[in-house]
């Protein structure tokens, strides 16, 4: 087994130099790649220094679980109000944002300036960990005060409803109907450890008279299946994998508009209303930019964009998607649930975990 080496390659002549050049090119290439990979970190110091100069356009990092098209529209609006602004968006499920924040804290601190969440329970948990700044901005007039806490400002209302496959008969009328044997094995529910609105729904049912955790027990024994996220529930129902599911009204409207065979059922006693809070982190070094973003999201311009992308805004006078007459949303007493998130999830996972 001899490796053949041609005589020419033994001569340390031009070929050696050529190879040397190739090696140098390779190293340069690697340096470029490394620079490309770390571009994110290298932009941060310059962004940090911007907060000192108040005239510079705002620059911030936003962690959010809000639907992509809503975030895109609101960020675009922010940029048009603040020309030259830059917003680094980290959009993921509520669960993935929890994981991100936990990883951030273990590796040198939270890197978000603003967190815009889906549900009050997850956001309040961040506040309880001291991640969120108290009273960063003066609350704009008209924002419903019943939702405000020290750190959280409501940005929009979400309605948890039932999605049904077109043509399903009979349709469920109440939340309790999902435990009806007629729908055995046909109901999909979102994972409250991944989806904030599912966590809020869990909080509502756990404390609502006549439901409690036994509601989930009944769902489980009726063969309900847990999938990951709220939109995935709608997709699975559209594809016919399940006939019914617990999801958000806006997701069903979007899917139906695209042609998917799904419809909204507004169950009794009512769709579960929850508010989607926004807050500034205590770790931010770009206070002015973060505050400017909050101010913008609560302005009528951003609220109109929120309405246009399918959600109920919180500012009075801006119309959101229509709700049928006679439907009255229900809600949980969120502050009474603060601090119970972990216990609720554990009880739930004892039923729906593996």
């Amino acid at each position, binding site marked *: *087994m*001899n*490796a*053949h*080496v041609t005589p020419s*390659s*033994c001569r*340390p002549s031009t070929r*050696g130099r050529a190879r040397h050049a190739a090696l140098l090119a*390779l190293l340069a*290439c*690697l340096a470029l*790649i490394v620079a*490309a*990979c*770390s571009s*994110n*970190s290298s932009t941060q110091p310059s962004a940090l220094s911007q907060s000192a100069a108040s005239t510079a356009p705002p620059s911030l*990092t936003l*962690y959010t679980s809000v639907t*992509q098209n809503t975030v*895109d529209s609101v960020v675009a609006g922010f940029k048009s109000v603040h020309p030259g602004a830059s917003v*680094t968006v*980290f*959009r*993921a*499920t509520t*669960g*993935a944002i*929890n*994981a991100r924040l*936990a*990883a951030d804290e*273990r*590796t*040198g601190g939270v890197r*978000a300036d603003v967190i815009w969440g889906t549900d009050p329970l997850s956001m309040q*948990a961040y506040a309880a960990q001291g991640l969120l700044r108290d009273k960063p901005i003066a609350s704009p007039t008209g924002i419903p005060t019943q939702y405000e806490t020290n750190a959280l400002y409501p940005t929009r209302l979400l309605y948890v409803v039932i999605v049904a496959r077109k043509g399903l008969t009979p349709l469920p009328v109440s939340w309790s109907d999902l435990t009806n044997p007629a729908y055995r094995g046909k109901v999909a529910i979102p994972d409250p450890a*991944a989806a904030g609105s599912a966590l809020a729904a869990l909080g509502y049912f756990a404390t609502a008279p006549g439901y409690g955790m036994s509601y989930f027990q009944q769902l489980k024994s009726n063969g309900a299946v847990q*999938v990951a*996220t709220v*939109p*995935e*529930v*709608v*997709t*699975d129902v*559209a*594809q*016919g*994998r399940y006939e019914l599911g617990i999801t958000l009204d806006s997701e069903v409207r979007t*899917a139906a508009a*695209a*042609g*998917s065979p799904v419809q909204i059922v507004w169950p009794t006693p009512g769709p579960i209303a929850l508010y989607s809070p926004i807050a500034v982190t205590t770790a931010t070094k770009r206070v002015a930019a973060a505050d400017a973003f909050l101010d913008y999201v609560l302005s009528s311009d951003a609220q109109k964009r929120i309405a246009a992308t399918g959600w109920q805004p919180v500012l009075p006078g801006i119309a959101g998607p229509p709700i049928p007459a006679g439907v009255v949303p229900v809600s949980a007493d969120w502050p009474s649930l603060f601090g119970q998130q*972990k216990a609720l*999830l554990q009880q739930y*996972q004892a039923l729906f*975990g*593996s």
Partner: protein
Amino acid sequence: MAGRTAVRAGAALVAAGLLAALAGAPLVELARIAAERGWRAAFDALGSAQNLGALRNTLIVGCAVTAVAVACGAAAALAVERRPLRERRLLRLAVAAPLLTPEFVLGFSWSRAYGPAGFTDRYLHVQLPGLLGPTGIIVALSAHALPLAYLVVAASLATRPVGQLERAAHASGAGTLTVLRTITLPLLRTPLLAAAALVFVTCVNSFAIPEVLGTPAGFSTMSTLVYDDLNLSADPDAFRQLAAVALTMAALVLVVIGAADVVLGGPQTAEAAGRVTSTPSAVARRSRTATWTPRVLVTAFALFAAAIPLVVLAADAITRAPGLSPAPSHWTLANFSAAMAGETVPALARSLALAAAAAVLIPAMSLAVVATGPRVRGPLGTAVTLAYAIPGSALAVGVLIAYGRWFVGSALIILIAYAGKLWALGHRPVAAAAARLDPALTRAARASGAGPLTAWRAATLPGLAPALAAGGALVLIFASHELTMSSILYGPGTQTLAVVVLNQQQLGQTGPTSALALVLGIPPLLAGLALAHGRRTAAAANATSRRPTTAAIPVTAGTA
């Protein structure tokens, strides 16, 4: 030769240091966090019903898949490797297709093709029973891992006189079963065990298939548990528990590898693969059954495991909305543009940059191992292979704890994980090529007055170059669609392509997910075709000159 000793010592230092940094430190950090409250508390935390369930599920899946994949893979190798050269190459590629398909793409496309409300369910009213759950995970992972077993057995068939001995036994009047029992299986004992260990390790490492097919059934394995537990990891107790689970995963595979090593008698690697002593295809038996059975079975396997699911993906990718039939009136290209919006294009560029960086770094790292000289090379190579065995989820959590604070907001942390995990992929071809180099060449160069560096560059490097390129190519393929570690290590502005695809799938965006899954899945298949073609030309060149060949590079595993 003081110069040579110094070079070898330096190389050994570099290689050992890299191993310690890329595999050792993450494991140590994992252990430190797991045992923050003492080992007793760590064991207690591990004993929760959820953790024990995941451990049990991992063992069940691992053992079942190992049994199925090794049995079928070996059978396929025995049948196919006896076919004439040209046919063998085609069949080999067909067998390898499900391994070349990224794990996520395989899991997702299977669920769309054969799952409830999938294509076969809607149009033929049949579905694969239990696809969403343990049965489905076992079947899909078996299809993904079968090519691994096939490759290991095929490589050993090329170096053992199995064919001749079997024919001798047949000629002496032994029946087929007797030949299998007394000749074939004893001869293949070592490769079968090696294949079993490799498949088992791949199963424990596997994340995407259990995540996609297991979640709807509430069936979690250790790797999906680590991923899900990250959602709750703000709680220090939950994080310690997660570290303990990850550490247990690593321990599990290291025990299995260690046991396999003992049974196999020392660190026996595929480095002998270059010694081709027989061509088993030369005198194949020519009965019609022997000709057609492998053809039909292998084609059916490739159709079922890869081709049909990929066609279904393509149909989903051009259908306007979930729940609509893929009729021409519902066709659209909007899913592709939607798929490419937002983070996707930067993520695609990032994945390619990371894969390219890993593909350059890893061969260089392998050179350092090879440069340590023949005696140290073996043990270091074994350590590199062991680093590959560490499950991606465990390694990623370890890397996050060990290096997270130094790589804030940078994708370089993902590169560190890739370098540790994928090192073995790039190392195997280089080590095999190095073992075949003739040391006399270097001596001749030195005797002619060349310095150590010149001698190395002139006599050693040219012999290693094809293997370095092959190793780099393998790393490039697997790094470009890596998911397990990226899904744990990504942050704001550092998503990889596979992470974007997983997130879209979890958001139920079937159309864009399918479109991106195609983007993710087609290039590795094309690369496989190209590699096979390259090997064919290499083999052709080999037939004319008497150069050593890298024909039996073991494609060791899928990691996405």
